[in-house]
């Protein structure tokens, strides 16, 4: 069973149409939650790290929020260059710092 579930799998938006991507996790406890952006054929590009419920981070049109069971990546007034796959990953307390990745949300923003 997946520990990290991202939804939707794919999302198409019109330029300027704000929306949110979801990352829910079923792990016991959370050390950190990470958001990455991945362009086709490229490596994941770090966006945010969140550690505790209620925490928020912002970067340009992106804002990441965290609750006890899920995180949202809010995209405000997206542009076509925001088109990418957005990956969520979590680490848990108790030794390993290796993140478990979700399958990602593929975002396409149409002009």
């Amino acid at each position, binding site marked *: 069973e997946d520990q990290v579930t991202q939804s939707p799998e794919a999302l198409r938006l019109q330029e300027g149409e704000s929306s949110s991507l979801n990352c829910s996790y079923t792990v016991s406890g959370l050390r950190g939650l990470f958001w990455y952006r991945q362009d086709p054929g*490229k490596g994941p590009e770090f966006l945010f790290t969140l550690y505790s419920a209620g925490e928020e981070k912002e970067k340009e049109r992106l804002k990441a929020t965290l609750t006890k069971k899920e995180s949202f990546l809010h995209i405000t007034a997206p542009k076509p260059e925001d088109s990418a796959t957005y990956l969520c990953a979590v680490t848990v307390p108790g030794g390993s710092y290796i993140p478990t990745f979700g399958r990602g949300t593929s975002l396409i923003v149409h002009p």
Partner: protein
Amino acid sequence: EPEVTQTPSHQVTQMGQEVILRCVPISNHLYFYWYRQILGQKVEFLVSFYNNEISEKSEIFDDQFSVERPDGSNFTLKIRSTKLEDSAMYFCASSEALETQYFGPGTRLLVL
């Protein structure tokens, strides 16, 4: 801005051949990682490396795989006898501490 670099960007090899994938982590980082991503699937952890030794490895990282830091800058992943199912994107990552990891652009490996 410092970044992780990887070479080659693409590698085509015959089944059974050895391949070496190379990475130059960010210079002040102490922790190094290899991941792979089969087309359309999740990013999967292979191995982590700290203080010149493997600190953690996954079930995927069997005896066919090895890692090395041959000098002060390079970090390599060797696959001794490639199989068709080794075809994937291989990503190197590094981190300053045991938290946020920064990924390289990847090597696309195709085993024929």
